[in-house]
């Protein structure tokens, strides 16, 4: 309770400064407003106060932050007309009338003005006016749209989100040209004032879901949001779970496919990763690539992934369990071969497996963080350590090298990094269980994981839908990848209210065959 009190009071304390500013109206004297803002931006050397006289009659000040503003346009479109024109009767409307800038807003409160300046909008303040004018002449430096390296596809769009929210929004809007695509913006972070966009399609996404997402986002109150990872951790259902309950992706096409199924997407300024809610476990085992290939191929690849999940999770532990407890379960000739290769190995199978798996994980992590030039060096070292040298040194048997290698390959098959890392971590406790209790331990581990998965929910949707609870209609996207023409209904869990996706009977048929061949 004490912590709650603290939290509440801290909220109050910081509110105070903002509240003062919010309540403060602009005054009619320019000098007063200017000095007030100057005190607020004291010590911010990048904030420019540019004083000048409009039409030769009235003094004004232009406030902006250097680097966030398109200076060229500011000079051409704002200063030039205001300085050159003379003799006209003065009013705030005539001022905004002569400025050829589309995005113009009139502001009344100091807080709004501070926000606008911080966001890179130049502010024009005039003498004798209780209103300020915000000019939408922002120019933010940004990265070009590139293919997201973590989610590359063979066949499909190569565009990925960037760090700018406006560009990301435009990427989505370009794909969904319907006014039904709604965007809600909120600002979080006491200092960072990060803009967060919540996207959904009205009429498909359920209202209760949108409400819940907004409620959770509204609850966030902290110094800063540095990325979607922060948001994910703050709004997910079970923060203590290893399993990701929110899908993160850098691909706009993936986001669009989820939006069309009634999911809600959260994008955060300054981060190219979108969050999709609600999500089920099986979404992590699907890739947008599945829908670029024929449905049979997509289905087969999906099953390959399911198998790889089992391999990543269970192969090393099964090997350890069989080798230390259930030697009778290994085919005779295989056991003899293994016995031969293990003869010189000084370690028990469990230790051997741990040694190799940890080495592999370390190498992999090192490879991810290192610059590319060093990456090749790591792979050479890795090949030596995991492969030849370890067996030659007599530390590890060659079947174990195979097991680790197969596990490694299988883990590369998982299309989403978060689920991959979860399974890779879970592999270790199961290995310990296998080393201590044999196959019984593995089964115990699986049971524990399944129980946990059954208890998980992502924004009200059970994590294992459509398997638990069983939703027959949605199995078409889990057991196999259904053909596009057969997906007549949207997923049950996210769009109950508007289930019809397309009209049935769209399977292509060669009806006009004769006509086609007639000439």
């Amino acid at each position, binding site marked *: 309770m004490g912590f709650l009190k603290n939290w509440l009071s801290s909220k109050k304390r910081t509110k105070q400064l903002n509240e003062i500013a919010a309540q403060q109206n602009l005054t009619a004297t320019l000098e007063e407003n200017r000095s007030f803002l100057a005190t607020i931006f004291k010590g911010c050397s990048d904030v420019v106060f540019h004083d000048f006289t409009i039409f030769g009659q009235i003094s004004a000040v232009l406030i902006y932050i250097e680097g966030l503003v398109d200076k060229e346009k500011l000079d051409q479109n704002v200063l030039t007309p205001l300085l050159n024109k003379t003799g006209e009767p003065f009013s705030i409307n005539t001022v905004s009338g002569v400025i050829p800038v589309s995005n113009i807003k009139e502001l009344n409160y100091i807080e709004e003005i501070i926000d606008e300046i911080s966001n890179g909008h130049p502010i024009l303040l005039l003498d004798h006016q209780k209103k300020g004018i915000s000019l939408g002449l922002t120019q933010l430096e940004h990265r070009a749209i590139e293919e997201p390296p973590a989610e590359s596809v063979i066949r499909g769009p190569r565009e990925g989100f960037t760090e700018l929210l406006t560009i990301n929004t435009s990427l989505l809007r370009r794909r969904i040209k319907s006014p039904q695509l709604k965007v809600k913006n909120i600002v979080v972070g006491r200092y960072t004032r990060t803009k967060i966009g919540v996207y959904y399609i009205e009429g498909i996404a359920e209202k209760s879901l949108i409400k819940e997402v907004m409620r959770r986002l509204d609850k966030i109150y902290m110094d800063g949001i540095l990325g979607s990872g922060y948001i994910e951790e703050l709004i997910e259902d079970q923060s203590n779970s290893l399993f990701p309950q929110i899908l993160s992706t850098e691909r706009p096409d993936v986001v669009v496919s989820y939006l069309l199924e009634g999911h809600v997407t959260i994008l955060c300024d300054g981060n190219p990763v979108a969050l999709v809610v609600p999500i089920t476990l099986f979404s992590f085992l699907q890739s947008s690539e599945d829908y670029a290939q024929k449905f049979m191929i997509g289905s087969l690849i999906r099953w390959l992934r399911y198998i790889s999940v089992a391999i990543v999770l269970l192969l090393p532990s099964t090997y350890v369990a069989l080798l230390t407890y259930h030697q009778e379960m290994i085919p005779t*000739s295989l056991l003899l071969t293994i*016995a*031969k290769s293990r003869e010189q190995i000084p370690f028990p199978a469990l230790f051997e497996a741990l040694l190799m798996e940890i080495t592999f994980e370390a190498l992999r992590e090192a490879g991810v963080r290192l610059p590319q030039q060093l990456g090749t060096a790591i792979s050479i070292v890795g090949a030596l350590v995991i492969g030849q040298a370890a067996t030659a040194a007599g530390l590890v048997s060659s079947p174990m090298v195979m097991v680790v290698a197969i596990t490694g390959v299988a883990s590369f098959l998982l299309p989403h990094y978060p689920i991959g890392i979860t399974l890779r971590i879970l592999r270790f406790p199961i290995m310990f269980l296998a080393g201590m209790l044999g196959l019984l331990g593995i089964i115990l581990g699986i049971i524990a994981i399944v129980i946990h998965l059954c208890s998980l929910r992502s924004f009200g949707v059970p994590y294992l839908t459509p398997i638990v609870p069983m939703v027959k209609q949605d199995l078409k996207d889990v057991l196999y990848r259904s053909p596009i023409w057969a997906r007549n209904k949207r997923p049950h869990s996210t769009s109950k209210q508007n289930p019809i996706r397309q009209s049935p009977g769209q399977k292509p048929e060669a009806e006009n065959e004769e006509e086609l061949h007639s000439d």
Partner: protein
Amino acid sequence: MNIRYLAFLFLLLNMTYLLTGCWDRVEVNNLAIITAAALDKKDDKTIELSIQIFVPETSGKEKQNVATMGNENTQSPTLVESAEGVNFADAMLKLQGKISRKIFWGQNEVFIFGEQLAKKGILNELNGILRAVQPRERANLFISKGQAKEILKLNPVIDRNSAESIHKLVHAHTGLEESIIDTLQMMNGESKAVALPWIEILTPQDGRSSNVRMPYIHGTAVLKTDKLLGKLNAEATKGVLMIKNQAASGTITVKPKPEKGYLSAEFVKDKIKLIPQITKNHLSMKLQVQTEAIVTQNSTHLDVMNSHDLAKIEKELAKGITLQIRKALDQGQKKWKADIFGLADTFYRKYPREWKKYKKNWDSLYPNLKIDIQTKFRILRPGMTTENPKI
């Protein structure tokens, strides 16, 4: 609070097996993997248990030996060790005392009983094998000519060890395949007799490498209750295999009457139905044989593609099959008077009530049981050619 509780529970759970020391973990490095076991009669009271252990160490060296010294002097990758005891369990314990590693029975699929011990009775030792945790009850059982231990000592060139050779032979279906559990079921069943594959040692004909001898399955041992009576030859074994529905493949060769040459056919499908009949206190048996085959050699003038000839061929072949089965039945009924085919069980299954009457007299009924064999033979394909090559 909750987390602490869980952590405590986790610790407690861990203690249950860590503190009690009930950690059954055994590394493969500490196992003496048994590939085959043999039991022999030592003297009137004791038996000798021999095991063939896979030696992983030598296998690596062997490779080098082969490269440098040639084939002649290869070291055996297996080790045969034996111990005496009053019974299987006793001998097993003594054997463990001789071997540094933990004896591991889990992979053993071959149990061989020596001729002498089999004559004395094998049930007592089977009891011990069945009771022990590790040995597989699906392991195959064999009777060997002479000392069973000698079979283990063999070092066949083509296979890793003699156990593997025997195991492969079983799967080739040239002899019977009987597991421990099957054998016990036969012994405990109504027929009280069992047929087991008979192993002999084959000496290569070239004489060059007389030390390279191989085990092979040659005939069938006939056991009544659990005691060895005698042996069926390879020809009769074919019939036994057919009656027991174990003849996965086989070839039959006949000489059609007016012709000069022979005709051989290989079975593709071979099914036999035992139909017991009790009519007016009279027991009889009907054997329905259905065989489908491919012609593999034809040196007669009969044309397989001619339907008239074909009928004749099929008739001749059916006759051949009937004869083969009859031979086996005669051996079992007349010569050894042991119901190795499990005929009693078929009666019991079909007439459970009436059977009680005949059960006691089965020993006297069996040798004179009238068995009618009906064979249907069908040629499926003429082989790769339809006509006989002409000169």
